[in-house]
């Protein structure tokens, strides 16, 4: 009986170790694009890190319920998205104020840091921040995670064609940065 119990315990430990290994692989694969996606949504590092932290813990707790391993990525992004949007609802006023404040500083910085090495990158980020999350989310998801249009559609709950057109529209809007950039250089 004791022998049987020790075998069972050993099996459980092996399963637990396998789970941690599997979790670590998933974590290393998704942590950076996920953090960037959330960061672009909430536009602040601390809340973004909190959301990513909570989502990975939720993933660990619900490992058994996610039957299809391929859907883990989509599950993580959807969980982060839900958390980010509930944070928006909670702090709507604060976020809007923060964005306005950020935009003001960004416009001021435009004139001050014209000749920074990565000026173009900074301008692109600012332009993205000016857009509402609804506008820029599909594009950010595509660039940070590399998901297919269909997968992004599932995460955002919209049609694939709408994903395609939203991404295209963001790209068209982002072209404006070249005008700033070239104007600043002159």
């Amino acid at each position, binding site marked *: 009986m004791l022998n049987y119990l020790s075998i069972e315990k050993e099996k459980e430990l092996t*399963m637990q170790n396998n789970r*941690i290994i599997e979790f670590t692989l998933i*974590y290393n694969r998704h942590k950076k694009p996920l953090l960037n996606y959330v960061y672009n949504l909430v536009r602040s590092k601390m809340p973004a890190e909190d959301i990513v932290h909570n989502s*990975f813990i939720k993933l*660990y707790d619900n490992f058994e319920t996610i039957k299809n391993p391929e859907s883990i990525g989509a599950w993580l992004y959807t969980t982060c998205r839900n958390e980010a949007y509930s944070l928006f609802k909670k702090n709507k006023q604060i976020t809007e104020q923060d964005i306005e404040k950020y935009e003001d500083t960004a416009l001021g910085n435009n004139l001050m840091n014209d000749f920074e090495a990565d000026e173009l990158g900074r301008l*692109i980020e600012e332009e993205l921040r000016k857009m509402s999350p609804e506008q820029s989310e599909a594009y950010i998801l595509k*660039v940070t995670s590399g998901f297919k249009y269909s997968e992004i559609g599932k995460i955002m709950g919209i049609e694939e064609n709408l994903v*395609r057109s939203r991404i295209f529209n963001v790209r068209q809007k982002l072209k404006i940065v070249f005008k700033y950039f070239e104007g600043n250089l002159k």
Partner: protein
Amino acid sequence: MSCSKIETMISSYLDNELPKEEEAFLFTHISSCPECREEFKKQNLINHKIQSRQIEVPPELDSRIFDTLKGRKSPAVLPSAGRPVLSYLNYFLSAVIVMLIIFSIVQLTQNANYQTQLRNVETQIEKQNKLINSLILNPNDEEKAPNLIKPIIIKSTRL
């Protein structure tokens, strides 16, 4: 094909969503159209800039997540999750064996009772047979057994 359609194709190409058979067409057009070539360069540069400006995951976040997991019991250890099917089968078979043993003990006890009752009945029959035999031997001695039913005696008569 209009240049606006090419802009859509460029966007799809950068997203790895343009069908392979359309790529040749796209690049043929780009090589001959300076505006579209410029558009391609700009969009490609924007993509590259965004990817290169991604923030790194701070090591504190790594340790925070794994520290939280350390203090957590893995769901696999919980009795309801991750337990192999064989384990449940073992429990089921053990329960069946215990029930069979209980059933056998009950059956054996009942069998012993029946045997005792049968032996009692046999003893009674034996006693009754002896009594009947004794009555047959003394048919006129009715006073000794007044309550007994008089056994039927068939006398053979020879003509």
